[in-house]
């Protein structure tokens, strides 16, 4: 590996990069300059072109125009291998691991240590183990199939793979989207180590507080163009958001109108819900018009609870009652018929038909209704869907586009929009703002509030504690499969909640 660059020297310059897809000009002259040893943040709305830009840098897309200069030399990156060879490793937004291979095999896929074509397995495993230790997770068995790991575990493997390449520049496209707070700290510790060694990081995230914590400089992209480069990472939020969206956006949590909660009307009553080795004895209620948030770490069993209420998982014991009617355990159609909706966490595997149009995806959840009421209904759904998508600023706003060609954040909006247009009694939202940009996020919050105001019972899971506190009326704290605390959001502070989810201390604010 060449070490011609000192920390602070310009490592990479991309200028005037253009990339068009059929019908979309995803990049329309983007400039980016990265120095050795810095964390360079890329900011931009959903669909601005961030992922496309880094795919050009990774050699996965060929640009239609522009120039890439690497360590002072003009370079073409004709393939992923070419990019890896010069020292650019990429962690893609959509996890790109091979489920059937082991952790170690995934880490070294494509550059297996080998002697005469035979993999040196012992060596490979030892190296993989070293990497996992460096990432703070020596307990993950490197021989285990990646498909059997949790989302956070997979994220770590993806990170280990980037490290294994010994790169000069590591691109991280929303690496924290699937991570809990402590895992984020862990990632940032690794990032600090890397930059101290002179490695440059290109960091993409919609969480501005992360950018302030680790970022050195910021480049803002809007509609495929660089609108500001080399900003200080402590540029005020309002200014950054203004640059991203070209307008002033309210970024604080919308004010909750006088409490509309009808506490006499318990829409969702969960009692003693238990699933072996996932969660035990979970009981709570959600009233009509109330927003209840579940805080906790990834792996605390929050998603599992939501999926069990929805019937996607079958409870070992315990009951779920919606509007006075007990739901058959493990039966999704029954739950949907009773008016329960779930926007799941893993959009790719659980929620979206990637090859179908946005419209089809949004209307999917309404199909049972549609078959009852006939064609006119589906047209109304479509109109509502379009209105919702417009409010969430889904781009491009064409509902006939295949979901596959949408940016990550826009896919997420499609998942959530599906349930927002449907008349649910109980809405279960699992990480609804994952990967969604700041502006759209505020709009999403407002939509959730409106739904609650109209009498829907909302149960929300989010790994971002401020989001749980800011959005909910009442907060449940989960840790290791158990409900620790239940309290009105107004009585909790972020620090107190973090304390509880991490240490399990039952201190009340």
């Amino acid at each position, binding site marked *: 590996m060449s070490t011609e660059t000192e920390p602070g020297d310009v490592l990479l310059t991309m200028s005037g990069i253009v990339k068009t897809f059929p019908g979309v000009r995803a990049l329309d002259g983007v400039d980016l300059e990265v120095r050795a040893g810095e964390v360079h943040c890329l900011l931009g709305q959903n669909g601005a072109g961030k992922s496309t830009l880094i795919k050009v840098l990774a050699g996965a897309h060929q640009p239609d125009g522009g120039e890439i200069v690497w360590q002072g030399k003009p370079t073409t990156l004709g393939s992923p291998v070419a990019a890896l060879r010069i020292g650019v490793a990429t962690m893609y937004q959509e996890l790109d691991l091979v489920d059937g*291979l082991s952790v170690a*095999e995934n880490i070294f*896929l494509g550059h297996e240590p080998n002697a005469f074509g035979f*993999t040196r397995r012992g060596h490979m495993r030892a190296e993989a183990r070293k990497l996992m230790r460096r990432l703070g997770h020596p307990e993950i068995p490197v021989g285990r*199939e990646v498909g059997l790991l*949790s989302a956070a575990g997979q994220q770590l493997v993806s990170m280990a793979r980037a490290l294994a390449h010994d790169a000069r520049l590591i691109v991280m496209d929303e690496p924290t989207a699937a991570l809990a707070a402590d895992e984020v700290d862990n990632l940032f510790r690794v990032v600090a180590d890397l930059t101290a060694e002179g490695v440059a990081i290109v960091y993409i995230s919609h969480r501005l507080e992360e950018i302030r914590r680790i970022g050195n400089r910021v480049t803002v992209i809007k509609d495929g163009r660089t609108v500001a480069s080399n900003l200080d990472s402590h540029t005020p939020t309002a200014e950054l958001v203004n640059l991203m969206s070209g307008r002033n956006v309210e970024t604080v949590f919308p004010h909750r109108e006088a409490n509309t909660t009808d506490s006499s009307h318990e829409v969702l009553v969960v009692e003693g819900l238990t699933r072996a080795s996932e969660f035990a004895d979970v009981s709570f209620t959600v009233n009509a018009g109330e927003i209840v948030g579940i805080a906790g770490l990834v792996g605390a069993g929050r998603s599992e609870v939501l999926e069990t209420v929805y019937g996607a998982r079958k409870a070992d014991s315990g009951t779920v009652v919606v509007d006075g009617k007990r739901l058959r355990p493990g039966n999704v159609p029954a739950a949907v018929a009773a008016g329960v909706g779930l926007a799941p966490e893993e959009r790719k595997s659980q929620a979206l038909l990637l090859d179908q149009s946005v419209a089809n995806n949004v209307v999917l959840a309404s199909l049972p209704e549609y078959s009852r009421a006939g064609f006119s209904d589906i047209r109304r759904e479509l109109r509502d869907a379009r209105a919702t998508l417009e409010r969430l600023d889904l781009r491009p706003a064409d509902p006939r586009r295949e979901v596959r060609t949408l940016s990550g954040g826009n896919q997420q909006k499609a998942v959530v929009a599906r349930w927002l247009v449907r008349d649910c009694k109980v809405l279960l939202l699992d990480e609804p703002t994952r990967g969604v940009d700041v502006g759209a996020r505020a709009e999403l919050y407002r939509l959730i509030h409106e739904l609650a105001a109209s009498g829907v019972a909302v149960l929300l899971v989010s790994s971002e504690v401020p989001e749980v506190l800011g959005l909910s009326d009442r907060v449940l704290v989960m840790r290791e499969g158990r409900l620790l605390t239940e309290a009105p959001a107004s009585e909790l502070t972020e620090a107190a909640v973090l304390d509880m989810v991490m240490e399990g201390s039952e201190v009340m604010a």
Partner: protein
Amino acid sequence: MTTLDERVAQNGLVSRLIVRPEIGALIGALAVFVFFSIVADKFLTAAGVATWLDDSATLGIMAVAVALLMIGGEFDLSAGVMTASTALVTAILAVEVGLNVWLALLLSLVFALGVGALNGWIVVRTGLPSFIVTLGTFLALQGLNLGITRLVTNSVQVSGMRSTDGYESAGFVFASTFQVGDTPFQISIVWWLGFAALAAWVLVRTKFGNWTFAVGGSAPSARAVGVPVRRTKILLFMTTAAAGWLVGSINILRFTTVQANQGIGLEFQFIIAAVIGGCLLTGGFGSAIGAAIGALIFGMARQGIVFANWNSDWFMLFLGIMLLGAVLVNNTFRRRAERVRR
């Protein structure tokens, strides 16, 4: 720092075993073995064992190759008819043209590799499903087999291998028998076991094996980290075709005659054996040993039914139950393993 997968880390040997893709096939093979050992006296005699191993062997060689290809995410419907095509090429070159058998075998191998490469090349170049592409090759080869055989011999078979140059030595390699006690076993059994072991080893111990899983599991991911996806797939198609050649050669040297319409319909048996052995139709998951065991189930059941003096009509019913049973067992265990997630 929280540990992400504490429960996973403590997993013992048993739970690691039951997520193996072969598990369903292994249980099935044991069940079939015990069942026929009880109901048919001849099943466990040396001659009986030789018979069902022989039946499993040629099927097993193909099932293993097809399993590799399926793990790589592709199908080959021309694999069955390929066993006939290669035998015909060898026989026509040796009998009608008068070449030495070894030279004929070599040219036949070149032909097989060419067809395999063509299959693979069309699939990776066009992105068409291999199901369709190889269906085309299958029909084309079927037509060629009949057309050319009739053109050259005026009949629908080629025979007379016995009197060709090199028949003895080639026959020794591909179609002789070896004695265990006083029972002759076919050499094809050795080829089968050897090939299965080699394939299993390649799959888990070599770069190429890793790549096979990767291109079948997620071709875009594999490409993004620099795996030569196209080359890997083309090589897998060529491996399947080469296995077809091996089976074709074993057949022609053993029976010295080949029918032009032989081999048709076998392609599904290969796929069934591979699926019983734990291959997923979606690719990225499976096992060579499993496929070999899948073929063993076939052989034991087909011959067991004969030994038990039942009508062979029952074979298909039996096969259907085995297929569903093995897949269900695999599925159940995988689910259980996945539940440990998170």
